[in-house]
C-alpha cells in the first residue's frame, strides 16, 4: 500500500481515495432517496383525511431545538475533522463525542415529538399526510440513529488504534454522512415544518 504523505491522511492511499469517491456516489443515491420521500410528502401534504393537518400538530419550539442541535453538530464534526487534519487525536475525539451527543439530543426531542403526535391521536395510520410525514421524519431519524452507532464504532477504533490512514478515512467519510443528514434536515425544517406552520 503506497502512502502519499503530501495528502491528508484520509486521502493518503489509493484505497482511501476510492472509498471517499464511492461514498460521494452513494450520497448521490441517498439524495434521490430523500428526494423521493419529499415528493411523496408534497403529494400527500394536503390529503389529511379526517386527521389533523400540519399547522394543527407542529410545534415550533422543539423543532427549533432539533434544528439548533443538529446544525451545531455539523459544525462540531467539522472542527473534529480539522483537529484530525492537524493530528490532534484528543481534540478530534472530543469534537466527535460532542457531535454524537448533540445527535443523541436531537433524537431524544424527535422521539418525544413522535410520542406527542401519537398521544394527540395523530398516528402513522391516521391519514396519508401523517404516513408521509412520519416516514420522511422517521427515515431521517433512522439515519441519525445508524450514524450514532457508526460514529461510536469509529471512535472506539480511533481510541485504540490512533489516527492512521484507515481510521482517518472512516472518520472523514462519517463526517460526510453527518453533514448530509444536516442538509436533509434543513429541507425538512424549511419545507415541512415552516411551510406547514404557515398554511
Amino acid at each position: 500500500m503506497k502512502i502519499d504523505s503530501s495528502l491528508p491522511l484520509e486521502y493518503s492511499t489509493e484505497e482511501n481515495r476510492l472509498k471517499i469517491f464511492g461514498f460521494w456516489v452513494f450520497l448521490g443515491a441517498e439524495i434521490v432517496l430523500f428526494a423521493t420521500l419529499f415528493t411523496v410528502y408534497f403529494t400527500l401534504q394536503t390529503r389529511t383525511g379526517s386527521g389533523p393537518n400540519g399547522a394543527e400538530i407542529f410545534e415550533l419550539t422543539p423543532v427549533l431545538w432539533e434544528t439548533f442541535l443538529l446544525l451545531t453538530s455539523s459544525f462540531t464534526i467539522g472542527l473534529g475533522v480539522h483537529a484530525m487534519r492537524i493530528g490532534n487525536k484528543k481534540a478530534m475525539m472530543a469534537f466527535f463525542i460532542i457531535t454524537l451527543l448533540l445527535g443523541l439530543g436531537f433524537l431524544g426531542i424527535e422521539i418525544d415529538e413522535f410520542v406527542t403526535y401519537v398521544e394527540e391521536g395523530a398516528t402513522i395510520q391516521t391519514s396519508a399526510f401523517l404516513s408521509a410525514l412520519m416516514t420522511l421524519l422517521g427515515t431521517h431519524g433512522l439515519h441519525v440513529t445508524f450514524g450514532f452507532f457508526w460514529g461510536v464504532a469509529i471512535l472506539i477504533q480511533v481510541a485504540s488504534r490512533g489516527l492512521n490512514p484507515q481510521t482517518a478515512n472512516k472518520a472523514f467519510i462519517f463526517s460526510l454522512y453527518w453533514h448530509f443528514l444536516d442538509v436533509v434536515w434543513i429541507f425538512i425544517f424549511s419545507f415541512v415544518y415552516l411551510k406547514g406552520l404557515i398554511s
Partner: protein
Amino acid sequence: MSMEEVFHPMQEPMILAAAISIVVGAVVIVAGLTYFKKWGYFYKNWLSTVDHKKIGIMYIATALLMLFRGGIDALLMRAQTAVPDNGLLDAQHYNEIFTTHGLLMILFMAMPFVIGLMNIVIPLQIGARDVAFPRLNAVSFWLFAAGCGLLNLSFIIGGSPDAGWTAYFPLAGTEFSPSVGNNYYSLALQLSGIGTLMTGVNFIATIIKMRAPGMTLMKMPMFTWSILITNVIIVFAFPVLTVALALMMLDRQFGTQFFAMQNGGMDMLWANLFWVWGHPEVYIVILPAFGIFSEIIATFARKNLYGYKSMVMSMVVISLLSFLVWAHHFYTMGHGVMVNSVFSITTMAIAVPTGVKIFNWLLTMRHGKIQFTTPMLYALGFIPIFTIGGVTGVMLAMASADYQYHNTMFLVAHFHYVLIPGTVFGVLAGYHYWWPKMFGFRLNEKLGKAAFWFIAICFNVTFFPLFILGLDGYARRMYTYSESTGYGPLNMLSFIGGIGLAVGFALIVYNIYYSWKHMPRNEKADVWDGRTLEWATHSPVPEYNFAVVPTVTRLDEFWFAKKEGRDITAGKIEKIHMPNNTGTPFWMSGFFFLAAFFAVFNLWIPAIISMIGVFGFMIHRSFEKDHGRYISVEEVMATEKSLRGDK
C-alpha cells in the same frame, strides 16, 4: 396465519411437483458436495470469493437458472391460452404465474445476466485488477441471491405475488391481495434492489477511478461506456424503488395510508413511483446490450466502430430521456391532455438517439469482412427484430392511439420485441463471446448457431401473432377466452412458437455440457482477434487479471498494437496487491434473508433478531483489520508461465 394457509399452495398438484423437485434437487446437490468432499472447495472458491470473475460467473449461473424458471412460467401461460376455455390453470394460478414471470425475467434474469457480464468484463476492459470495492461486490451478489431465493420460495410457502409485476394499488393492497404474496414482492425486491444499488456505486467508482494509464473517457471501449451510463441510471433510479417498496410494505403490513382508497391515500402515487424506477430500469437492461453489440459488431466486421462519439452521446441522451417518460405506461389512467402530450413527445424523442445507434451499427458493417460467428448472428438478428419493437414503441408512444393498444397483447408483443432481441440476444451474444475468456474453451459453434436459429425464428412465431391478437382487442392477463372470440388459432400458433423457443434455450444449456466435454482446452488469449484489453490477458484469466497493467494511447489500443507487432502486456512484473476472500458477505446476506422471510409473515421478533445478526456482521467488518495480501513476483511469473503453456 395458520400452517394450513402457509402451505396452501402445495394443494395444487403442479406446485407440489415443483416443490418436490426443488427439494430433490437441493438434496442431490448437498449429497453430491458431501460425497465428493467438495464443501471446502465450494466455500473457499465460490461462497467466500471476492474475485469479480467468479462473482460474475455466479450471477450468470443464477440468471440461466431463472431463465428456466421464468421460461416454464411462460410456457404454462402459452399452454393455458393455446385453446379457448382451457382448464390447465385456474385464474389465481395464472395471476401468480404472469406476475412471477415478469419479476423473474426482468429482475432475476436480465439484471443478473447484465451484471454478471459487467463483473467479468469491465475490470478486464479497463485494465484493472479488480473492482473498486471487491467485498461490496460480494455483498451485492449475495443480497441479490437472497432476494432471488426469497421470491422463489413464495410459490411454495404462503403463495406467490399475484397482482402483476407492476403491483398496482389498490389491487396489490391487503384488501384485494390478502395473501402474503405481495409481502414477498416488497421484501424480496428490496433485498436484491439494495444489492443492485451497491453494484451501481461500485462500478461507477471502478470505471471512473481505475482505468489503465492513458485510457481517457473517450478512449474507453463502448461496452465500458454503456456500463458506466447504466450504473449512473442505477444509482439514480433504484432509490426510488427502495422508497416505493418500503411504502408498499408499510401500507400492507403497518396500516399506513399511502396508496389506500380512503384517509387521503392516493393509489396513482404507486403507479408513478413504480414507473419512475421502472422505465429507467428498461434502459438499465438495454444499454449494456447496446454496448455488447457494439463490441461484437466491431470485432466481427473487422472494423472500428462507426461514429464512436455519436454512440456515446446517444447513450447519454437515452439515459436522460429515460427519466422523463414514465407516465407513458399509464396514459389511460386519468392525467390530462397536457401531461399526455408532454410524455408522448419525450417518448418519441427516444427513437432518435436509438435510431442513431442502429445506423452506426449498420455503417460499421458496411464494407466490413463479416464473420458469421454465433455472437455475431445474435447481433445481426437483433437489428431487424429490435427495429420492429422500436417502431411499435413509437406507435404506443402516441397517447391518443394508446387508448386502443393499452393493456392489450399488442403491448405485450411490443415489449417482448424490445426485450428479447435487445436484452436477451445481447446477453446471449456476450455470453458466447466472452465464454472462452471465462473458461479457456469455446462453446461449440454448430450448436450455438442451431440454438440461435431456433430462438430467432420461434421468437417471431411466438410473439408476432400477439400483435394481431392485441389489435383485435385481446386483453393481456386474461387467463382464458371463449371460442367465439376467434383468438384460438393465433394463440395456438404462439404456443407452438413458445415450444420452439424452449428447445432453443435447452440447446444453449446442452451446449455447455457438450463443449465442456468435447471442445479443445487452452484456447489462446485472443480467440476472436478482438480489439479491446480483455483479449490481451490469458484465457481463463488469472486472478490478478494482468501481470503488467497495459498503457493505453488510443481507442482499440490492443488492436493497433497487434498490427504493429507490439505486446502491450510486456513490462517489469511487480508484486501484486489483492483483496482477501471473506465469508462475511455470504453470512450477512443469509441473515438478511432470514429477516426478510420472517417479516413476510409479520414475525417481527425473529426478524429483529436476524437484523441484529446483520448489524453484528457490519460491526465485525468495521473492526476487522484486513489489508489484503500480496502475490509475489515469483508466483506471478510461475502463473504466467503455466498459462502461456511454457514448460
